[in-house]
């Protein structure tokens, strides 16, 4: 719609006679409206026009920003600010490019500032209203009400500004198009409802809503592609998972199997984007620590995880048996199905005895011997059933990893086990599988971000300095730096800095327009 309007504008601009006709037509309409002016109505319209005042808009915007900070909805806050900035900037730049004077032929009764097309107050108010509707209001009827309310408020403002002779009709129309379309596109593109729903219940941003149409699509896809009847879909383990939506599916009995549970992970395009940004961040902060090449498509995501499940099973590592990949929406959403470890509990909630310690260490030994690294050893990814350690979430598995990465896996496993027991007990058991030098290397490598966030948080709440306890027991070993420098890292850092500088300079040079 915006594009169409720009084409019309360019056409009018190129054709003087058409442009002149439009000007005269609009002037006649405004003159007709001006004939209706009466004292009380003018006072009322001046009051309505206060909706566009700097202080009204500022108050509403600051209120929204504070509300978004209070509910810690950072993505929506960023989009709200970004779309407001873009709308204001585009409206301002277009106005100084088009240089359309204020309406001619009528007395202008309200304050104004700068050229008239597009109407910046209308664009600003519309962008604020739509931004609020998408950033703060839950989807469905409440959001529809918010959008209609914005429409009514902006409509009132437009009528007031036409009555007061301060804008042309097309100025306001253009302003509305800019103010509505920019936040609308921004929120729908970067924070779609089904991926980042505005909700006042607890939950992670990366998790998809599996009710409604998506739930139905999952049931149909599993039936058609895998041949199983889904009886129930339940999100599980959301706290420990940020890169996908983990689900427990209850499937109906078949000729060979009774009614049972399957584990599933739902991936969508936003997970691909999140993976890309995550890896970009790591590349800038730490350099080429390991393979930081992002996945190009959702299909590749699930294909890779399915491959790692099969690879680990072949290597004899206790991981869920793969049940295949289900296509929910081609190239947009895929789900990987695997065995559900019924009766298993997360290691953090399980009793850890010497048998579990040995088993956990043996799992790492098996990874080492097979030339693999898990790369995400943390309590949420280790289950215990009948005294045996089971490994889940194998998405990050790397084939032929660096010795550094393998060492980090060992350190992380020892830390997970020590949290439930003590460092000395775990160290003694570890010597059955690893040499003291290997353990020393593990704790020389396990620094900062080498350990997953969940593990770091568990260690922090534990209170003991387990890392240093292990280091004290192992032979002395100089710390291994996690910083790696390369041309790619320098170029990436340069790109990000340039981008940040451009945004900063835009903000500074247009602060008056924005604020």
């Amino acid at each position, binding site marked *: 719609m915006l594009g169409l309007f720009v084409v019309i504008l360019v056409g009018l601009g190129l054709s003087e006679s058409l442009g*002149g006709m439009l*000007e*005269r037509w609009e*002037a006649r309409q405004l*003159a007709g409206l*001006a*004939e209706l*002016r009466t004292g009380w109505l003018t006072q009322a319209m001046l009051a309505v026009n206060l909706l566009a005042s700097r202080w009204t808009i500022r108050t509403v915007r600051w209120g929204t920003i504070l509300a978004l900070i209070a509910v810690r909805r950072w993505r929506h806050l960023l989009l709200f600010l970004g779309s407001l900035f873009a709308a204001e*900037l585009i409206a301002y*730049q277009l106005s*100084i*490019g088009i*240089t*359309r*004077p*204020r309406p*001619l*032929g*009528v*007395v*202008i*009764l*309200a*304050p*104004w*500032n*700068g*050229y008239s097309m597009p109407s910046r107050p209308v664009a600003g108010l519309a962008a604020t209203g739509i931004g609020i509707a998408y950033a703060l209001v839950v989807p469905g009827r409440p959001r529809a009400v918010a959008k209609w309310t914005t429409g009514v408020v902006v409509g009132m403002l437009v009528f007031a500004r036409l009555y007061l*002779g301060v804008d042309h009709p097309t100025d306001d129309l253009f302003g509305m198009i800019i103010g509505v379309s920019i936040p609308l596109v921004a929120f729908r593109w970067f924070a779609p409802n089904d991926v980042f729903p505005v909700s006042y219940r607890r939950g992670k941003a990366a998790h998809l809503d599996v009710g409604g149409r998506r739930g139905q699509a999952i049931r149909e896809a599993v039936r058609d592609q895998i041949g199983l009847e889904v009886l129930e879909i339940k999100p599980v383990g959301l706290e420990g998972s940020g890169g996908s939506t983990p689900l427990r599916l209850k499937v109906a009995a078949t000729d060979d199997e009774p009614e049972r549970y399957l584990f599933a992970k739902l991936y969508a395009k936003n997970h691909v984007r999140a993976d890309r940004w995550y890896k970009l961040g790591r590349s800038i902060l730490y350099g080429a620590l390991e393979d930081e*090449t992002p996945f190009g498509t959702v299909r590749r995501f699930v294909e890779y995880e399915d491959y790692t499940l099969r690879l680990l099973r072949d290597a004899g590592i206790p991981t869920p048996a793969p049940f295949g990949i289900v296509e929910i929406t081609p190239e947009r959403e895929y789900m990987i199905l695997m065995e559900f470890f019924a009766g298993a509990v997360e290691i953090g909630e399980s009793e850890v005895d010497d048998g579990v310690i040995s088993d956990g260490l043996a799992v790492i030994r098996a990874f080492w011997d097979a030339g693999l690294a898990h790369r995400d050893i943390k309590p949420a990814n280790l289950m215990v059933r009948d005294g045996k350690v089971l490994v889940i979430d194998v998405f990050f598995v790397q084939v032929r990893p660096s010795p550094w990465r393998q060492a980090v896996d060992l350190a992380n496993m020892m830390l997970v086990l020590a949290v439930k027991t003590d460092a000395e007990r775990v160290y003694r058991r570890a010597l059955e599988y690893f040499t003291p030098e290997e353990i020393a290397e593990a704790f020389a490598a396990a620094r900062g971000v080498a350990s997953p966030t969940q593990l770091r948080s568990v260690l922090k709440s534990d209170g003991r300095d387990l890392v240093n306890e292990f280091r004290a027991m192992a032979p002395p070993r100089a710390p291994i730096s996690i910083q790696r420098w390369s041309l*790619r890292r320098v*170029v*990436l850092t*340069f*790109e990000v800095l*340039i*981008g940040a500088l*451009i945004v900063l*300079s*835009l903000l500074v*040079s*247009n602060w008056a327009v924005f604020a």
Partner: protein
Amino acid sequence: MRGGGGMIGRTLVVGAVGLTIALPACSTAGSSVPSCEREGNETVLAAQAVPSATLIPCVDSLPAGWTFAGSRSTNGLAEFWLDSDRAGIRALSVTLTSTCDTSRAVEITAAAPRPGVRIFEEPLSLPPHFQADRFATFPGGCVTYRFRFTTDAPATVALEVDQGLGFVTRERVAGAVRRLGLTLCGAGAPPCPG
């Protein structure tokens, strides 16, 4: 090789997008120069800002070293400003309002550029950092020239730029608008609705 190409391509795209966005933000000048040669939209807007003004300040031909830097118009005020390579950034701002306070300024009778215009001057500081206000009053309006040199440029630089500035009559601007079948409300025009 492929990764490198992608990286270079990405850098170019980031740079191009950045420049595309940033350049217009840095250039408030360009087509917005209120020229004395033609009755452009910026002059019409200035006339709308101060409907009582019978004269509108404009830029004739700026002497070497002076450049048009920006303009703004709002109800009651129209302003543009100039940069100088010798006198500094925003060395001169020219502001049109309906009235101005000339009580502390001295009238310079000989400097009147046209009948009906009275010139007043109020020196504020001598070089270095020459500063002075000049006022041109006429029926329905007043133009204030604020010289604010940020360097040690001599006061004669102010005289140079003075030659490059002028006025366009409201009548001429209204005539140009009338040729489009429209009316510029304000001084000299028939009563407008409202």
